[in-house]
Structure formats: C-alpha cells, structure tokens
C-alpha cells in the first residue's frame, strides 16, 4: 500500500521560515509548535496567537434546496440562521454516531458554507453526496480557502490595525463579508467571531493564495501587542481548558450527541434528520455513559486511553482527552463514565489509572479555565 503524500497549507513555507516543528496531522503537514506549546498557550490567554487552520474543510451548499439538505444533515436547527449568523452542530449517521462536528454559515438565502474537520473531509464529502435527497448544489471547496484563527484579548486591536476591520461590532457566532476596499484589498474574505480557544477572537477565511498576505499583515500589526504564531499543540491545550470536544477523541461515530453533552445542538423537535429516531430513543432512555470533565487533585497527567475508576478502584470509563493545563498547572481531561450521579455530578471523586499508577481527580464541568 502506498502512503498518501502529505498535503500542505498555503502557509507551509512561512511556517518553515518561522522555525515551526512540522508534524503530519489529518493528512496535512502542520505546525505543532513554534516557540513552545506553553509559551504559545499563554500568549493566546494573555495577548494573542495566530493559527493557520487552513487544513479545515469547506463545503458550499447552494440552490433552492440548500436549507432542506442542511436540515437533514445536521442535528442543530439551521432554520434559525439569518445572513451573517453561524451555528455549531453535529452531523450523525443513521445510528446516531457523530460523523463530524461542524460550523454552518449562512452567507445569504440559499447560500451556506459548512466548515468541517480536516481529517474527515473525504468521508464527510462522500456522506453528503450520498445523502442529498434534497438535491442541493454541493461543492467541495476545501482547497480554495485559507483559514487563519486570530485569538486572544488583543485580537480585535490587531485586526483593526492590520486591516482596518472592527470585529468588536460582531457578536459571538456572527460574521461579516467585508468588501475588498475594507480588508487589505482582498476579495471574498469572511471574518467570523468564532474560535476554538475560549478567548475572544476571529477566524478569517480568505482565498488560499491570499493567506500569506493576511498572515503577514496580522503578524506585523500584532508585534506591538505580543502576537505569537501558535501551533496545533497550543490549539489542543487551549480547547481542552475550554472544554471543547475534539472529533476523533471526545466524539466520533462511536459516540452520540446525547452522551457527549451536545444535547444543546441536537434539536429533537426539528423535522426529520439523520439519526433522529435513534437519538430520540437515547434521550428518552437516558444514555448509559456520559462525557465528563475532570481536574486532577494530585500530580499526574491524564492521557487519551487512560482508565477512569470510581473511588473504589472499579473501572467506570476511559479518558478521551487529557493534558496538563498550562495555566492551572494541573492535569485536566475529559472522558466517558457510566451515567450514574455519583460519577457525573460536579465534585464527584474519581481516579485516573495508567501504567500501574493511580491518581485522584474531581469531576468538574468545563470550562476549566474561564477567560475574562
């Protein structure tokens, strides 16, 4: 079997110039860190960080049946969207398993953009094409876009200085499509008040060939604000501190949105959608397991795959994500446990077991770190 060659984002040369440590991720060569994960993590919490997330996939959905297609595809209710509004959702298979989580942008009536995880682009794209009874016009535009995430307390100041764009007028999960005169002379830019860090910030979509222009403008403007290039390593510790799920770890086709705590984006009173029947049943019967967050009480770092035990040492579940919080300097994690109040209620005592060692932890509802 021949190995699939790695793909590169439009900013690959810049990352190498910046001395990034590049790693294969989801089929792409991606920067995992530049100066160091902890320093980059703190930059995002205290100043700002700039991420290249151009590996993410973009699918455009257009035509008179665009909304009908999306409503069938996702668990959340896209009929609540209006122009300039985005929402977060899961998309499930017929068994209620989470194929992916995604953002849905309503650009205009009958014009939507779906943003999906890089590692799932091929599978999602095949699924969408095979589940398009509504006959919407689908286009896989993943290679057309560059995507930068500018995140942190100084993000709005930096964006304003770099591109003259005032993002403070955008509400959370809202976006704007500035015209070329108001954004570095570039066409087709989307500035979205979204992110994966728990900090204020924006995600900026642009044409792939314009990504370097946007990156350089932001880095230059950000110098006085302490902006740092930030890699996937910090992206992971930041999202975990904020309690955001990572598809492939905390959610997957083996998990459903009810047990994953994604009931808030699962609108069971909506008309039919993929997986609805099964999810209604899960909801009514109550899930057998539940995704919890926890904080270590003593030295020890939870990791994906470690065992979660009750106070009596009995196995009750498994860690799906874990790290040492760079801000709190303690172990934090998420994982599935038996759905019993004594294991899922915040404050419950549990244990994490790995490599023959056990350390105690306390169930806590994320975010573990709350930004100002």
């Amino acid at each position, binding site marked *: 079997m021949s190995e699939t060659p790695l793909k590169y984002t439009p900013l690959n040369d810049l990352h190498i110039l910046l001395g990034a440590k590049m790693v294969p991720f989801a089929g792409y060569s991606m920067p995992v860190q530049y100066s*160091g994960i902890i320093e980059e993590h703190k930059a995002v919490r205290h100043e700002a960080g700039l991420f290249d997330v151009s590996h993410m996939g973009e699918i455009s959905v257009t035509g008179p049946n665009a909304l009908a297609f999306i409503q069938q595809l996702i668990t959340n209710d896209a009929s609540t969207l209006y122009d300039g509004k985005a929402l977060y959702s899961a998309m499930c298979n017929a068994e209620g398993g989470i194929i992916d989580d995604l953002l849905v942008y309503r650009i205009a009536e009958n014009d939507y953009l779906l943003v999906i995880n890089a590692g799932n682009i091929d599978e999602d794209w095949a699924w969408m094409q095979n589940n398009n009874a509504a006959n919407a016009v689908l286009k896989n535009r993943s290679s057309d876009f560059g995507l930068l995430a500018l995140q942190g307390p100084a993000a709005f100041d930096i964006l304003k200085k770099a591109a003259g764009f005032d993002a403070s007028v955008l509400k959370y999960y809202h976006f704007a499509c500035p015209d070329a005169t108001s954004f570095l002379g570039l066409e087709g830019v989307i500035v979205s008040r979204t992110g994966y860090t728990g900090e204020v910030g924006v995600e900026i979509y642009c044409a792939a060939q314009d990504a370097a222009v946007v990156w350089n403008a932001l880095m230059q403007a950000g110098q006085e604000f302490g902006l740092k290039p930030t890699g996937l390593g910090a992206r992971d510790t930041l999202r975990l501190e904020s309690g955001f799920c990572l598809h492939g770890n905390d959610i997957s086709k083996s998990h459903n949105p009810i047990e994953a705590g994604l009931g808030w984006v699962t609108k069971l009173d909506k008309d039919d959608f993929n997986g609805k029947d099964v999810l209604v049943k899960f909801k009514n019967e109550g899930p057998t397991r539940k995704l919890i967050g926890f904080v270590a009480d003593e030295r020890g*770092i939870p990791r994906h795959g470690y065992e979660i035990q009750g106070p009596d040492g009995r196995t009750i579940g498994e860690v799906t994500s874990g790290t040492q919080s760079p801000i709190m300097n303690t172990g934090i994690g998420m994982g599935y446990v038996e759905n019993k109040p004594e294991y899922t209620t915040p404050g419950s005592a549990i244990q994490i077991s790995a490599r023959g060692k056990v350390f105690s932890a306390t169930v806590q509802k994320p975010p573990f770190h709350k930004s100002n």
Partner: protein
Amino acid sequence: MNFPEDLLYTKDHEWLRVKGNQGTVGVTDFAQSELGDIVYVDIDTMDDQVAKDGVFGTVEAVKTVSDLFMPVSGTVTELNSELESNPAAVNDDPYGDGWLVKITLSDPSECDSLLSASEYAEMVGQ
C-alpha cells in the same frame, strides 16, 4: 545542538556522566528539544536496582509521555527533587540543573557499550 564530550550516550537519548562507580543520568539536548515543554518528571525508583535498559521513570511533555531508560545497571541513590517544582529545567539545562538521577554503577564495564558524543551526534543527524 550541544553534546558534551565528557558524557556517554544511549540510543534512547539518555546521557551518563561517570566518576568511578558513581554516575549521573539525564536526557540529551536532542531529546528535550524533540519532547518540547516538559511538565512532569515521574521517577519512583529511589534505592531500586535497575538493570541496563530498564525503565527508571517517565518524563511527560505537554503532548507525550516517554519512558526513561537506564544507560547501565545500577542503584538509584538520589533524585533531582528540584524537578518537582521546575520540570522545565530539563529543557533549559539538560546536562546541568536538568539531571534526573544519580546512581551507583553495578558494572562499570557496561559503559563500553555506550556511545561517545560524536557517535551520538551522528546517530541523531547533528
């Protein structure tokens, strides 16, 4: 990258400084650089006799856990307790403040099987 001439090295990226039958063990500059920010050093083999290539602890970076392998057979006589509050010393000063354990060698002749600085540098392509 720095690989002091007076140390011996393993293929697993530990170094050993020997004086008579007393040794000090750490991880190399290359290892700390590959691991990235080290956040936890976990060694609970104090007073244990650990065989050559045996695991004497783990070092955890933000994203990874790595076993630590003993370069030569010996008994652990001292832990670097400073690392409990400052594990980043392994990154900042891998051959100095970032040392991991001190040992009494069981068989100093095992040192012959270890790599010299230049052999190690060649192995890691530096």
